[in-house]
């Protein structure tokens, strides 16, 4: 469903993402981890079509995100880390706009909007202007808008930031539920425990390179073998002090786990 085919992205001379090869099949919840500035957001912005790879290609359900950007966007739902909402639209009007842009006709649009209002508990405030929403309310509306068209691929950037415990639980349940019904979920997060709890597979990116890729089983074996936690493994893998310039040179580590 998602395919990064030797993707490199440069910003001037800086290599933000280097030779990323990654395939994420249908129904998998993939957690993308990495320290700040590692290349997570650049990868996501390329995946949703905002940035273009300098080399390589990204395909979503077989659609190239550059050559066939509209078709790729059509099968994708995106929840950004800093969501945008039109202040002077109500939540319902925002959902209706997204539904129309997703090609739903009036009947489909009304049904989809009602379904998501119900699913995300938006009824109490959906007819108020978005400018009055709290962060949690906005985040729920953005999730609802991303799922209006039942996308085949859901891309979520830092979904837990700023949410209260109840909303975090809801988001985790939602992502798992989507994956179990066949949606490919690509989630970027800093919260290691969330990744460990809900992801089918985890990838760690550092300085533009994928340095760890493994399923939960492989990860648990690796952690048991090294008698360590995911946090310690993450810190070990992304430790500072490496003299290799960012985004160039050989892979930093190969921990015997499946590599892309």
């Amino acid at each position, binding site marked *: 469903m998602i395919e990064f085919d030797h993707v490199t992205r*440069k*910003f*001037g*001379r*800086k290599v933000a993402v280097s030779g990323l090869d990654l395939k994420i099949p249908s129904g998998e919840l993939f957690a993308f981890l990495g320290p700040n500035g590692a290349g997570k957001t650049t990868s996501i*912005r390329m995946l*949703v*079509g*905002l*940035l*273009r790879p300098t080399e390589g290609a990204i395909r979503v359900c077989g659609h190239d995100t550059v050559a066939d*950007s*509209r*078709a790729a*966007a*059509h*099968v*994708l739902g*995106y929840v*950004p880390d800093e969501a*945008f909402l*039109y202040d*002077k*639209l*109500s939540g319902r*009007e925002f959902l*209706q*706009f*997204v539904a*129309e*842009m*997703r*090609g*739903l006709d009036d009947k*489909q649009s009304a049904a*989809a909007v009602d379904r998501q209002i119900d*699913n*995300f*508990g*938006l*009824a*109490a*405030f959906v007819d108020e*202007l978005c400018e009055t929403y709290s962060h949690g309310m906005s985040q729920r509306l953005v999730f609802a808008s991303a*799922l*209006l*068209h*039942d*996308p*085949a691929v859901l891309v979520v950037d830092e979904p837990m930031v700023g949410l209260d415990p*109840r909303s975090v*639980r*809801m988001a985790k*349940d*939602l992502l798992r*539920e*989507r994956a179990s*019904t*066949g*949606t490919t979920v690509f989630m970027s997060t800093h919260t290691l425990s969330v990744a460990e709890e809900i992801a089918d597979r985890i990838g760690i990116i550092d300085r533009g390179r994928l340095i760890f890729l493994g399923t939960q089983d492989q990860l648990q074996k690796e952690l048991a073998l090294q008698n360590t936690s995911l946090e310690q493994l993450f810190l070990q893998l992304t430790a500072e002090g490496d003299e290799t310039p960012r985004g160039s040179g050989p892979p930093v580590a190969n921990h015997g786990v499946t590599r892309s």
Partner: protein
Amino acid sequence: MSQDATYASTFDLGLAPPAVAAPGGGLVSPEAEARAYWRMRWRIASAATTQTLTEGRLRVALIAVLSAVLWTILFLVFYDGFRFLRNTIPGDLHDETVRIVFGVFFVTMTLMLTFSSGIILYSSLFRARDVAFLLTLPGRAERVFLHKFQEAIVLSSWAFVLLGSPMLLAYGLVARAPAYYYLVLVPFLVAFTYLPGAIGAVACLLIVRHLPSRRVLLLGSLVAGVLAVMAAVGWSIGGSFHQDLLTPNWFQEILDRLKFTEHRMLPSWWLSSGLLEAAQGVWSESVLFLALMVSNALFFRQVGIWTASAAYRAAYDGVYGRRTSRKRTHVALLDRVVGGATRLLPAQMRLLIVKDLRLFRRDPVQWSQFLIFFGLLLLYFLNIRRFSYDTYYKGWVNMVSFLNVSVVGLLLSTFTTRFIFPMISLESRRFWILGLLPLPRERILWSKFAFAVGGSIVPCSLLILLSDAMLRVTPSILASHQLTCVILCFGLSGIAVGLGAKMPSLREDSPSKIAAGFGGTLNLVFSTLYIIAVVLLTAMPIHFYFGTQSYGGLLSERPHLGEWLQVWLVAGTLGSILLGLIATIVPLRMGFRAFRKIEF
């Protein structure tokens, strides 16, 4: 359903299984896309209008009244001007004069609209927050472009409509134009705004697409180039005349120098010709020009769409694909100079002033506008040197010199409204730092006031000095102007800082939106009234004093007139000082009181 209940229901998500193979509907058609955008725009506009009408009636009323007053004044000025031309200039020369008046106005508007739409589009196509959202939807990139282009046209052309509509209506009435003239005004103006707007849009897209890393330099060079051309044109038009001032030959020479505005390839010429033909009832010729304009407008709009289709996404990628250089900062000479000049102030205040100066000079959006305005004024002052006391009637020169002081004051009021007034509101975002520091809140306001006065007094004083040097005014007038300048700087700074603290916009983080809000508008209105009052208090007695000196007979008929005028001169000067003190102290006191109570 209560919020908790609805919340709880989300645990059982009950989501419909996603249609993996064919999610949602098909790709949205261009027509449906256009409908969705228009509906969204309409909804936003209605919500904003309803909100403004319920929450900001005073603001709307004030803006409406001020706009109506300005429009009426412009209409009367144009009406009188066109009547004057009709009554004093004979036949063919009258038509040629009107054609050139229209030509100069529309050429200027073409340049302004091209630049303003290009600049607005750069910000709305590449920097606006909603664009990243819109580009991730499966719509066409050119639809996003069109959406932003139409917004830019409206934003960049309101000044043109405000200035152009009274002029064209006044001309129609003076020329006794048929009803047809008024009917075609709207399509002519709409088509005209599209042309430079589309050219600016295409230029913006191509520059960002092909020169993303050098776009600021290129845009800066373009602006500098246009300013240089304008200066050269201004120089050649205002250059030494072969004829005596205000004679028919001098007038003809001016018209000859402005002939370039009648170039057949300029849209401004199509517009002025079409409207003049319509006013004279030659509707067939007028329709021809209208068709020419509409077809060109549609053509350039289509070029914009093609360019956006081919270049917008790549240009967007280029803007965000650049590596942001990590700038190393150092203590600039200017910081040291300001630090030294404010040595006598309390240390905390000094630090706050230097901090504000650093924020200002490191933000090109802030200082570039300031620089362009002052640069244009500098060019104008350099061009007035021939209009001096040695050559012309002193009353005229005196009037021009005071008008120059007013222009500097008005420019300063836009500076205080745009940059000083929003400073308090912007501090609210950083108030977790300033609010926790062991310093009295008043000191923050005093530092803003000192920053505003210090930052305005030097450039304004130098500009007025230059204007006076070019006009070769007497030392006493020069001293009077400098005093007026100081009074203006203190008063305008006091109004901006005081009102900024009294009426902050704590939720807004864009300085331009804060300045355009109700508080900012009120600040501009009070500032304008203050400038008019101060300048009139000092300019009027001096003007009459010169008048009586030029007509010596008047003084011999009324021997006490000279003494009265001297008293008026002193009283006017003292009055302006008093007004300056009031304008400084009263708003600051109000601001201090409000700032002490404010909860961030």
